[in-house]
């Protein structure tokens, strides 16, 4: 009887994990389908079949030009940034044991905004040129990107140094992140105060995230950082699970708690910093995607990490698709759309409570 009972428990568990795998597979398929659909949209009409042909290198030159060089890079940038923001949020929430942890609560986004503002005002990286679609052009995008990256990563480094040398707790790390975030926001405001209206416009324009800013080169850099870090997180999935039972239990399971936490925080911030410094600030994806995935498939990081990645990629791609079709030919800032879509969805899920996977 014992073995029969054990067998049914194992069988039920396998069925349970299969359902989670199915959800992830479904989310990935939906994201890919949305990617193809998204590439059909735009002023030049392209059918889904033509998109697939172009991807396979079978389309005529004009279609290939539009699909591959204009739309594909945008879609891929949305996918990579979505994966990066979501996986970073997922790991931050996991290692800090705090559902509020995200690039916002840890000062990463505010740091990026301050860095960009400083570059635009103090280093003269911003200017205005009227070129039709975009009213504001940033004259030296790389200077802004580098400054934004420096700002984004410095908040995290400060928090990590406090954790490493003063041994502050995960809760204190969140509070320190919020403090650094406020500090950077204040810095941005002061910088704007000393800026002329053209520069202020550039700053505001920069802070609206836009996946269309990525070219192939930027996409390559983002991918080169995001994908290996995501793989590292997947390798550490058991450690993140163990951390959720408390530090002492995790240590008793052989986890190097301090190193897992610091490495997770650093790499998560790195991925976020790269995404926001290239694309501008994209709110909510990092916070919401892990929660959405957790609501459906639970907190086991073996499934949660790929699940959150799929949800994040889908969410950002869907937001971007909306942002460039809603009031076409005007492209709305995707950062505003992510909040607009994410917040009500999130509130709905909170109100509905957990669903049994």
């Amino acid at each position, binding site marked *: 009887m014992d073995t029969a009972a*054990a067998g049914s*428990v194992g069988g039920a*568990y*396998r069925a349970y994990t299969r359902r989670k795998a199915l959800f992830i597979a479904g989310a990935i398929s939906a994201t890919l389908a949305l990617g193809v659909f998204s590439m059909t949209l735009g002023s030049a009409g392209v059918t889904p079949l033509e998109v697939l042909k172009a991807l396979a290198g079978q389309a005529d030159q004009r279609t290939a030009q539009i699909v591959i060089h204009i739309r594909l890079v945008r879609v891929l940038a949305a996918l990579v940034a979505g994966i990066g923001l979501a996986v970073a949020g997922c790991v931050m929430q996991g290692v800090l044991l705090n559902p509020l942890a995200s690039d916002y609560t840890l000062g990463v986004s505010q740091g990026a905004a301050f860095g960009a503002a400083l570059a635009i005002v103090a280093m003269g990286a911003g200017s205005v040129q009227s070129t039709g679609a975009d009213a504001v052009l940033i004259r030296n995008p790389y200077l802004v990107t580098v400054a934004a990256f420096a700002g984004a990563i410095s908040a995290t480094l400060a928090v990590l140094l406090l954790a490493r040398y003063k041994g502050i707790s995960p809760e204190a790390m969140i509070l320190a992140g919020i403090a650094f975030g406020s500090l950077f926001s204040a810095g941005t405001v002061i910088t704007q105060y000393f800026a002329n209206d053209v520069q202020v416009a550039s700053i505001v324009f920069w802070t609206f995230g836009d996946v269309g800013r990525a070219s192939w080169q930027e996409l390559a850099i983002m991918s080169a950082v995001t994908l290996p870090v995501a793989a590292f997180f997947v390798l550490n999935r*058991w450690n993140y*699970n163990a951390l959720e039972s408390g530090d002492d239990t995790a240590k008793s399971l052989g986890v190097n708690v301090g190193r897992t936490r610091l490495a997770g925080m650093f790499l998560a911030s790195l991925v976020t910093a790269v995404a926001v410094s290239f694309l501008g600030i994209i709110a909510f994806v990092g916070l919401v995607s892990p929660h959405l995935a957790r609501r459906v498939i639970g907190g086991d990081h073996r499934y949660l990490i790929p699940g959150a990645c799929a949800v994040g990629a889908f969410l950002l791609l869907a937001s971007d698709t909306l942002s460039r079709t809603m009031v076409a030919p005007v492209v709305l800032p995707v950062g505003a759309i992510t909040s607009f879509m994410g917040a009500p969805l999130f509130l709905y899920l909170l109100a509905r409570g957990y669903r049994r996977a």
Partner: protein
Amino acid sequence: MLAVEGVTFSYGTRRVLESVSLEVARGEICSILGNNGAGKTTLLKCALGILRPRAGAVLVSGEDASRLGRMEMARRMGYVAQRDGAGARLTVFDAVLMGRRPHIGWGAGTGDLKVVEEVISALNLGDLALRHLDELSGGELQKVMIARALAQEPGFLLLDEPTSNLDLGNQLEVMETLRRAVAERGIAALMAIHDVNLALRFSRRFVLLCGGSVYACGGPEIVDEESMEKVYGVKVEVQERGGTRMVIPLGACGGDGGRDGGGEEIYGK
């Protein structure tokens, strides 16, 4: 055999353990008794290798614990912490599976799932296997944590207040589960516990901690009026009932009673 030899530990300048020695053999439960702040949890963490003692050594089957790696220690020792995180959105099966972590390379294999199934059925948790931790009662949760530690297949089990926050029925059930597991698997268990009578009922060896050092160490006979007054600062009456000792608290002593000013007391005021 788990042996703690002359372990001394301080948090900063505050000395918490002073040359503590004890031994636990396979198949037996050893209870650590002492008031709040006496160093019970610190002693467990030193034995586990989470805290590094200033002096002394912990010997795991004769090997120096400080020379064994993190993972090797995790394969030999299971730990049930006092406050375990139940916040994670995990099922019981996943929580128990976590105990396999020190044994797992890339992913959980069929062998790992078998061990988890076996432990779950041994602890009668089968009906709860796919429930989430945050849907469990305190007693169920405690059994899950013990199950996780057993899934580690450890030779030694360290438990910090496994019955705190449990009602009477659950206290007995958890302790019964523990006793059976220790006997059947030949595990050596070291347990910090507040309830003296529960300790007397389920364990055969006792270590009385007082102000960070061992006041007495031995069988049930060391739990008497004198030692209870010294360790807890409480006047008690000791009775035998059905071959088991029972301690009936009469009242707190007026004097300093040897307490080291920990937190609140457990028995009356």
